[in-house]
């Protein structure tokens, strides 16, 4: 078995979650890498949808932005921004949403807006983009982000995107049609919502990590599943495809 990095196991674990999926709404960065890897390996035929309006994009290299020319050239259809959100995302036509964030809380709510106060932020982040609609409308969503006490926090500095709100029943009270985050994948492990409380619960450890290590990197009192498992190590094939995607991407940047 090859050596692999914590980012690689995180991306590979996220791509495995797309096994059998029909369509995925993709943000740029880690989600885009995982979705493109899934299309190569775990979900052939996966329809990639980007918020630039490219439906069914088939990039051969990782795009730098959600509007790269290759996404439009290889798409089944390119639609306007109002159309992608109103006709395609909002009715729940896109099965899975893939999201990243700067902060997540125990109910998988996300912050991509500010660190610190809104009016005088310590760090101003990009903001909402498509994330609130993706998390609201997709039948299910997957969150991928690196984990530390600064990112897995007890209380978000700003609630940009709703996961499970304040817990059981919140999504239906807030009128969110989709079922919400099915899984949160970090570079340390995998978390799934508790079926009753909807709190994100550690269900798998990546190879080489311990529960204590995850607990130390979590800003709330960590819930651990009774059926905790270890994430299967990356296969050689997964690593080869992932590294090929990265290689193609950095080569493309030098064009």
């Amino acid at each position: 078995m090859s050596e692999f990095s914590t980012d690689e196991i995180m991306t590979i674990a996220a791509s495995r979650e797309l096994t059998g999926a029909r369509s995925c709404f993709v943000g740029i960065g880690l989600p885009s890498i995982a979705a493109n890897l899934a299309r190569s390996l775990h979900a052939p035929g996966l329809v990639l949808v980007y918020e630039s309006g490219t439906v069914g994009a088939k990039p051969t290299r990782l795009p730098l932005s959600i509007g790269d020319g290759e996404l439009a050239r290889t798409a089944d259809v390119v639609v306007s921004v109002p159309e992608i959100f109103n006709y395609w995302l909002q009715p729940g036509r896109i099965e899975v949403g893939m999201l990243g964030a700067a902060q997540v809380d125990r109910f998988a709510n996300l912050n991509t807006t500010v660190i610190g106060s809104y009016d005088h932020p310590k760090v101003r982040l990009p903001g909402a983009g498509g994330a609130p609609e993706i998390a609201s409308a997709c039948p299910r969503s997957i969150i991928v982000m690196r984990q530390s006490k600064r990112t897995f926090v007890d209380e978000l500095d700003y609630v940009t995107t709703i996961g499970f709100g304040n817990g059981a029943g919140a999504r239906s009270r807030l009128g969110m049609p989709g079922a919400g985050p099915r899984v949160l994948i970090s570079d340390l492990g995998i978390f799934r919502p508790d079926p009753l409380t909807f709190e994100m619960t550690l269900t798998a450890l990546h190879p080489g990590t311990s529960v204590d290590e995850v607990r130390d990197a979590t800003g709330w009192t960590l819930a651990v599943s009774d059926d905790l498992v270890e994430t299967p190590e990356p296969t050689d094939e997964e690593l080869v495809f992932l590294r090929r995607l990265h290689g193609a991407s950095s080569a493309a940047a030098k064009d």
Partner: protein
Amino acid sequence: MAEFLSLQSAIATHVHDGDVVALEGFTHLIPFAAGHEIIRQRRRDLTLVRLTPDLVCDQLIGAGCARKLVFSWGGNPGVGSLHRFRDAVEHEWPRPLELDEHTHAGLANRFVAGASNLPFAVVRAYAGTDAVAHSSTVATITCPFTGEILAAVAALRPDVTIIHAQQADRAGNVRLWGITGVQKESVLAASRSIVTVEEIVDAFHDDRNAVVLPSWTVTAIAHVPGGCYPSYAAGYSERDNDYYEAWDDLSRDRAVFEDWLEHQVYEQGAVR
């Protein structure tokens, strides 16, 4: 009917201090040359509107042209932060920047409402988020038919919308294709519009699917080949990803940015 003007005249005539100015183009067809001309003409107190205020808004904000930004995602796509935008929000440099932020769907639908001459549009995903408390252009409403609780977002009607397109014909009809973002809605929502184009053609020849803005919906057209660089115009140019990556360093430091502004914008002649 659209009037053919130089970019310099188009900006001088149609963009005024204090205006609400939308610059649209979703990653593709971003009107950079027009943004630089606004900087050169030292417009002030603008309210800039743009779903993805990337480099072009970073430059306008750093140059001190903007009082307010209406937006939905303010980053350098695939690269990281917009440092001039962050400096304005975090340190009020070169001046304070008021924000009105939405989701992509919310802001896109504000343009749809503006183009439709309706007072607001209806979207779902704001419930439970902090966006409602921080924007005066979002409100909660109850559906009169189903009782469902929804978000209303106020119509947006810019004083002027600026876009870049691939082609205009000699009659002043405008045609753009590829990723077409929210350009049609933002032009139809605005009081005035300026379109810079790659090429002026005698007639539109092929019948591939495209957005066409008839001449009578456009105020001014300026022929500016390459006017969307470092973004791209499908069929004419490729996105310069290296430039986006280089901007990260170049824009991080105020002095380096001001030097860039001096040499790459102020000292450059206006486009014709």
